[in-house]
């Protein structure tokens, strides 16, 4: 890992509360994810994992502290810049129900290329958005011949999560944020999913920030830490 390169995530002295008067959900002195680094962050339910990802993605407004995602100042940049950074350079996977129900699998995977010209351009090396989407789907063990036109709802949860991973990865984003994407999967499928995800991140050089309450996943990653180690506001129940 090149320490000198722009970090994928850099947080200093961050504080975040949902409302002005409510106590902060996040109070983080220091946190950093290097480019290409794959980090596991464990945290109890309600400890602020999703909130942290929302802050990093620039969806939630931060009033205090410094937070950079891929060099963009997500605390001070205007909303348009933040939304743009997210569209161009971030991939997000949620816990469940990642797919737009009204688009078939292939369309769902290609969606980031419709939001961002940069992402579409980045798929050129692999033959354009459609070709790249097919490539990613087969890498994630979903035969595009069978699933490309399938309705998103007709897929199993594990399959949906892999489609979501393909969508997060298309167009070579530099940072993948994964919000408990395996919590609905059984152990075998969970491990298989994580292996595939890590592999794809490695091959595209994307950094990965993976949050979950399930500490058992930690060994798969370059680095693992507990949110309570960095978040001084953490009040989540102990899992």
């Amino acid at each position, binding site marked *: 890992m090149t320490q000198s390169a722009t970090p994928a995530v850099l947080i200093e002295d961050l504080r975040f509360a949902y409302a002005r008067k409510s106590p902060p959900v996040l109070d983080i002195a220091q946190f950093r994810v290097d480019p290409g680094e794959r980090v596991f962050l464990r945290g109890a339910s309600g400890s602020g994992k*999703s*909130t942290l990802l*929302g802050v990093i993605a620039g*969806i*939630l407004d931060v009033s205090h502290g410094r937070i950079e995602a891929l060099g963009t100042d997500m605390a001070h940049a205007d909303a348009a810049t933040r939304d743009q950074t*997210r569209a161009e350079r971030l991939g*997000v996977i949620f816990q469940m*129900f990642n797919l737009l*129900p009204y688009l078939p699998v292939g369309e769902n995977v290609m969606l980031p290329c419709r*939001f961002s010209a940069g992402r579409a351009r980045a798929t050129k090396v692999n033959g354009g958005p459609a070709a790249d989407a097919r490539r990613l789907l087969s890498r994630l063990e979903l035969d595009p011949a069978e699933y490309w036109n399938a309705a998103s709802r007709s897929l199993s949860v594990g399959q949906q999560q892999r489609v979501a991973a393909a969508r997060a990865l298309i167009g070579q984003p530099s940072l993948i944020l994964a919000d408990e994407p395996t919590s609905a999967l059984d152990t075998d499928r969970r491990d298989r999913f994580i292996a595939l995800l890590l592999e794809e991140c490695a091959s595209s050089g994307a950094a990965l920030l993976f949050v979950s309450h399930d500490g058992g996943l930690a060994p798969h990653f370059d680095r693992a830490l507990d949110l309570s180690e960095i978040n001084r506001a953490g009040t989540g129940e102990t899992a």
Partner: protein
Amino acid sequence: MSRFPLPRLALRSVLNRRATALLTALTVAISVTLFLGVEKVRHGARASFENTISGTDLIVGARSSPINLLLYSIFHIGDPTNAISWQSYEAVSGAPSVAWTVPISLGDSHRGFRVVGTDNRFFEHYKYANRRDLEFENGGPLEDTFSAVIGARVADELGYEVGGELIVAHGGGEFSFVQHDQNPFTLTGILAPTGTPVDRSVFVRLDGLDAIHDGAGPGEDHAGDAHTEDDHAHAEPDQITAFLVGLDHPAAALRLQRQVNTYPDEALQAIIPGMALVQLWSVIGAAETTLTLIAAFVVLTGLVSILTAILTSLNERRREMAILRALGARPHHIFALLVSEAALLALAGAVLGTALTYGLLAVLAPVLEARYAILIAQLWPGLYDLAIVAAVTGAAALLGAFPAWRAYRNSLADGMTIRV
């Protein structure tokens, strides 16, 4: 650069909720159909109404109200209050600047159709729509005392043909007490359809009317008396109901009107048909405005149903919005998505409604024309309909701003945590 595939998403999202979308669009379609239908019929009714008489400068009758005179003399609605004397008719006819006059005598009926006593000048001078002449579909004008000409509707409904006979009863109603069974009239002509009360009229000569009132008929004292019928024709009636006046110069109308209205020997009244029509329409107009207003509110109901449909779907779509946000959608994209969904539903509904309206009109126009003399001028969607479609779509977009605003707020507050 961050883009947003708005049309694609809006369309797919609406199609995804097909059943609701279809019902919502259908509600709008039905409301638009009602609105356009009311408008069409209203315009048709108004046009037909205004087209009833043309080219006549004055109508003269006994003094009552202008609307009353217009109603009974031209529209054959209600009964004349009073008759006017033949002397007065001749006096006015002789006035300078009078080009022609047509006497009209009302009060009798034939199987529910009004009988108009007049002479052949009626077919020459009565004009409708934009100075269109009456035309004979079959046969020709009145001949002897006991000849009759009927309008298109009468011929249609009663199945009469030229050469046939008909019997005139005294009184205006469908069932009259006095039947002049002894007085068959021979049909000499059938007029082409006009969309005016002429279609529902039976025309006979003034002396023909007199003859039946006198109890005389061709089968009795006029039998084999064909040569003397001309004499009878010139025998003038004592009274008529009203008469139409054509002038050399329309500019003379006001002066003549004043002279008639102040005619010393009899209480006469002259009206200018155009002005009386406007006056009459202003009475009907109130009802007409109410109808339009009701139709407009029905359209509003249709639009509100779009609002309801979108608002109800909003909660279950919070996750969808969060996904879009995670993909880089800006909050205003979320706003635009919902607004365009509302607009899309309204557009589909309005277009469907327009199609439905004209489809129905194509089927119903002949019935409207035949039964109600309402002529639908335009049987293809025009600029007006386009404007309605645009207005409905625009209004839906405006209403859609409400759920869109809520989704916009949600998308800002939800962040990445959606609890659904």
